[in-house]
C-alpha cells in the first residue's frame, strides 16, 4: 500500500517535469502533442484491467470492462494517428 503523501509527492514531481518538457515542444508539433496526450491518457486502461478481471461479474467488473474499451480506443487510436501525422513532417531536401 502506498501512502497518500507518497502519491502526492509523485504528482508534484511529474507536474513540474511535465511543464519543463512540454515547454520545449515546438509550436509546429502541437497537434501531434495533443493526440499523443490522448494516447497517454489511455493509461487508465492499466487501472481498468484489474477491475475488469475481478471475475465477480458485478457492476464494478462491467464498469471496468467499459473503461478498458474506452481507454483502448485512446491508446491504439492516439498512438497510430500521432505516428501517421509525424510521418508527414519532413526536413527540406538538399
Amino acid at each position, binding site marked *: 500500500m502506498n501512502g497518500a503523501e507518497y502519491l502526492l509527492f509523485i504528482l508534484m514531481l511529474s507536474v513540474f517535469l*511535465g511543464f519543463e518538457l512540454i515547454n520545449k515542444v515546438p509550436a509546429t508539433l502541437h497537434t501531434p*502533442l495533443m493526440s*499523443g496526450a490522448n494516447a497517454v491518457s*489511455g493509461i487508465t486502461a492499466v487501472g481498468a*484491467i*484489474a477491475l475488469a478481471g475481478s471475475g465477480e461479474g458485478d457492476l464494478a467488473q462491467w464498469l471496468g*470492462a467499459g473503461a478498458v474499451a*474506452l481507454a483502448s480506443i485512446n491508446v491504439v487510436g*492516439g498512438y497510430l494517428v500521432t505516428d501517421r501525422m509525424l510521418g508527414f513532417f519532413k526536413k527540406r531536401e538538399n
Partner: protein
Amino acid sequence: MDTSLVTGLGYVVASGLFIFGLKMLGSPATARRGNMVSAAGMLVAIVVALLDQGIVDYTYIVGGMVVGGLIGAVVARSVAMTSMPEMVALFNGLGGSASLLVGWAALSPDSATFTLITIVLSILIGGVTLTGSLIAYGKLSEKLGSGQIVFRGQQIVNSLVVLGIVAGATLFVMEPTNTTYLYAVIGLALVFGIMVVIPIGGADMPVVISLLNSYSGLAACAAGFAIDNNVLIVAGSLVGASGIILTQIMCKAMNRSLSNVLFSGFASVSNEVTEIEGEIKPISADDAYYILEAASSVAIVPGYGMAVAQAQHVVKELSNLLEANGAEVVFGIHPVAGRMPGHMNVLLAEADVPYDQLLEMDEVNPRMDSVDVAIVIGANDVVNPAAREVESSPIYGMPVINVADARTVFVLKRSMASGFAGIENPLFYKENTRMLFGDAKESLGKLVSELSS
C-alpha cells in the same frame, strides 16, 4: 519472485519511457521515434497490469481491448487531417469517461476518506470532460452549429449546478453506501460539462480543446489516486501539464485571460462603426501573377479558410513554382490559426511542405518588411492590424502577423464578410492590399497554371 515488485518496476520503466518519449517530441527530427518510445511504455504498463495475480477472468478484459483497439485503429487510419480537432475532442471525452468509470468501479464500502475524495474527483473531472468534449466535438464538426449558446440566468443555473456538485460530493464522502449521492454527482458533472462549453464560440475552440485535453489527464491522475496506482498519476499529470501549457499559449496568442474565454466570449463586441479610411482594391489573378513573378521574397499566411477550401496542396504547388522562379518562400503561422494548436502545420506537412519552412509568428514578423508579397489565405483575425492600431477594437493588444509591413499583400477571400469573431478588418483597406476574391483553391489554381506556363 515477488509479483508486486515486478509490477512496481514495470511501472517505473513505463513512466521513464513516457517521459523520454515526451522529451523526444521536442524536435520534429526525433518526434516520430519519441511517439514509439511512448507507445512502448504503454505496452510495458499494460503487460504488467495483465500479469496482476488478482485477475481471475480475462474475458472482459480481452473483449474490451479488442473492441476498443479495433475502433481506435479504424478511426486513426481513416480520419482526415482537416478533422483532427474533432478527433482530439472526441478522444479527450473518451479518456474522461474511462476515468469516470474507473473511479466509480473503485468504490468499495470500506474505502478510506482520502480514497473517497479522489473517487469523487475522478468522477467529477471525468464527467465534465466527457460531456464538455462531446459538445466541443459537435461544435467543431458543425453538427451543433459553432455559435455561442447564451440564455438568461445562465450564471444562476451554473452556480446552482456547482452548489449541487459540492453538496452531492460532500454527502457522498460522508455516506458512500448511499448510491443516490453518487448518481447525483455523476449526473451533475455531466450537466456541468455541457454548461461550461455551450457559451463558448467557435473562434475560442483552440482554448477549449486544449483545456479539455488537460482535464482528461487530470481525470486519469485522480483515478490513479483512487486505485492507488502511481503510473496513472505520472502519465495523467504529464497530460494535464501539456494541456495547461497549450491553453496558456492559446490564451496569450489571443491576448485574453482564461476566465475571459470561458465566461464572456466575444459577445460584447460593440456595433459602433469604426471609420476605416481607404477603399477595397480587387485584383485579378492575371495581375496578381505579374506581381508574384517579380517577387523575390514571399510569405504565405494560412488560416482556417485554407483547410475549409482544402487548398493546402495547391499552396504547396504555388510555393514550389515560386521557389523555382528564384523567390524565397516562407509560411507564417499564428498560434491560433485553425481550430486547434498546430493545426495548420499538420495540414501543410501533409501537403509535403518541409517543417523548416513553417515559421512561428515571432520568427516571421521581424522579416516582414523585407517581404515583397504576403499572401493571406483564409485568415482574418490573426492578420488584423486593428489589434495594433485601433484601441477600441475588441482584439486590441492581440499579437498578430504584421502582413501589412510587406510591400504588397494579397488577401484571398470569398467575399467581404467579416471573420469568425465578426470584427472589421482594416487590412483590406490598406494602400498596399489587393483583394483576390473567390474560392481560395480556384484562385491559387489560376496562379499556379499561369506560373507553370
